[in-house]
């Protein structure tokens, strides 16, 4: 009997070990900064300190494995549209506060994560060091510089959630919807591609040629006007700030504004404060556009194909005049997250 009991305990122990080994194999992956990070695949308790990767994870992984989110009003607003529908526990997730640019280690420790995903631009990032050294929790750093990085992020979330098949599906969906745009813009000759000035919220701040927005403009059938900048430093910076004379000299055909709560295209075209802009071709021809909804048309998330189509339709209205944008948005959300948009009903 005693022997039998021991055998049962031993068998159970073996089973636990086998299951834990099977469900949480340790794998080594490279993050966006090229650091080698050892993580469990799937990671069982993930904390997201940035919204773009979270959206990707929601498209690929199991929502239950997200244990905490960054305490960020912007992110909450960003996600409230769709994610409470696909994740019933969304509102109950723990939040991790940020003081200045430092992650609060105590609130992070409370979530007891086995992986933290955050935005960082350098391997020496203070938050990476603090979390790894103090809490001993692996950190996956996200740093998006191109459309390719956005697609690569899907693979990353596939590894983190151990759902590579779904990741491949998601990438397929993204490619399919990107093709709606690129099938049209791919054949546009160089001479018909408008020169585009991308306007971040700081107005004279723009996207350099080594940026994700540069890729977006090119795929949408335009050319980033910064490609013609004389100064190489300015051209290659991720977010150069030009002066108005440089912009007048570059003379873009189109000005494309990131969503700006303080400004509308009309202000640029007719506002008293923008009188110095009147001789720019884009202003003269009334070709100033704005990303209408920064949540929906987020270029650094799985929704990138929608942002791409949005920009392409403004750059080449004639070539996309038959496109039903609302239907595409709804179809996309059904394919990606199984939810209708904007009704938010489950498909």
């Amino acid at each position, binding site marked *: 009997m005693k022997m039998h009991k021991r055998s049962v305990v031993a068998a159970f122990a073996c089973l636990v070990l086998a299951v834990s080994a099977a469900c949480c194999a340790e794998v080594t992956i490279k993050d966006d900064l090229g650091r080698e990070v050892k993580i469990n695949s799937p990671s069982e308790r993930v904390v997201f300190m940035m919204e773009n990767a979270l959206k990707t994870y929601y498209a690929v992984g199991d929502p239950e494995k997200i244990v905490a989110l960054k305490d960020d009003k912007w992110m909450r607003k960003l996600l409230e549209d769709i994610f409470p529908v696909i994740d019933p526990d969304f509102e109950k997730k723990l939040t991790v506060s940020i003081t200045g640019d430092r992650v609060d280690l105590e609130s992070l420790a409370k979530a007891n994560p086995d992986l933290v995903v955050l935005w960082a631009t350098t391997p020496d990032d203070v938050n990476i060091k603090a979390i790894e050294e103090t809490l001993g929790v692996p950190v996956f750093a996200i740093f998006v510089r191109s459309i390719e990085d956005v697609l690569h992020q899907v693979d990353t979330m596939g590894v983190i959630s151990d759902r590579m098949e779904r990741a491949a599906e998601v990438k397929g969906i993204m490619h399919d919807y990107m093709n709606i745009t690129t099938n049209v813009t791919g054949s546009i000759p160089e001479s018909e591609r408008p020169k585009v000035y991308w306007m971040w919220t700081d107005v004279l701040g723009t996207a350099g040629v080594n940026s994700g927005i540069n890729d977006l403009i090119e795929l949408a059938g335009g050319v980033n006007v910064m490609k013609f900048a004389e100064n190489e430093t300015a051209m290659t910076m991720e977010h150069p700030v030009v002066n108005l004379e440089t912009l*007048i000299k570059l003379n873009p055909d189109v000005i494309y504004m990131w969503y700006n709560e303080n400004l509308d295209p009309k202000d640029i075209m007719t506002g008293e404060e923008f009188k110095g802009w009147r001789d720019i071709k884009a202003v003269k021809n009334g070709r100033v556009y704005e990303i209408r909804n920064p949540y929906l048309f987020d270029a650094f998330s799985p929704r990138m194909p929608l942002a791409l189509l949005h920009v392409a339709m403004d750059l080449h209205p004639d070539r996309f005049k038959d496109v039903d944008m609302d239907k595409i948005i709804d179809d996309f959300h059904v394919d990606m997250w199984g939810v209708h948009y904007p009704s938010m009903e489950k498909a």
Partner: protein
Amino acid sequence: MVGSPVPYKKYLYIFLIISPLIAMVLSLFIGKFTISPDDIIQMVIFNLMGAETSHPSVYKTVVFEVRLPRVLLGMLAGASLSVSGAAFQAIFRNPLVSPYILGLSSGAAFGAALSIALAPQFPVQLSALFFSLLAVGFAYYIATSRGSTPVISLLLAGVIVSAVFDSLLSIIQMAVNERALQSIVYWLMGSLATASWSKIHSTLPLALAGCAVIYLLRWRLNVLALGDEEARSVGMNPELYKAVFVVAASLAASSVVSVVGIIGFVGLVIPHMMRMIFGPDHTHLIPLCITFGAAFMVLVDDIARSGMGFEVPVGVITTLIGAPFFAYLLRSTRSGGWE
């Protein structure tokens, strides 16, 4: 100068008084958009005569809608910050004082951030102006007790108000998205990049009023700089004049800060430079601060807008250019001209 046996100071004084004109003319020829000097001269002359020229409209836009408003706004900002700094330094009898001593910059920064991040329906300029004056008002209220406003209380009240508004600004910075944060940070660094005629029109009345009051009452600063007791002994009401100068200097500085953001160093250093060269007499110091402050800011902004391929916040350049010059003067005068 004036009173000085060294003749070169007389010439230097005259040169500094006319320096804004020289800087303005020079700056019209500097920029990223290439226009020949002949074309610029022709356009300016024709424009002054009210005649039309055959130059491309983009040339006119660059000269009259981009460069000229930027140069004039720079002059206004430099003059206002310098004269405001000189007045505050005299009132506080303290060489470390800048126009931002009473929490003006912290209030303006909070106001701007509030508008950029949370209340875009309120224009940034208006919000920054309102909160900068509110901060100074708070500081003055805290420091005033039984009809008297001791300088040390005012100084400490400024520290308190600055700290409160800095904390409120931090809360906003924590709550906003990355792009809004970037806009706030860029605003905080100060720039003349978005200069326009409408900004000049909205800034000019307050800045001019503040500068004019300080200019017209400038000799009283000499008395205030000696202390309250000395001021009373010559029949002057120090509380009244302190209040007048604080209001005037705050109006001058707030009006430009609300438009160009926080440009450091100018308000602190230009009065010192002038004091080191020409002595502490405010009858000469104030006009010199107005003119050299204007010229300095315009020339520094020429570097900010044309020195590199991208726009550098002018506040960064004012410090990089001003600091070595200031250090040189500091080493070559006793106690920085305060003795």
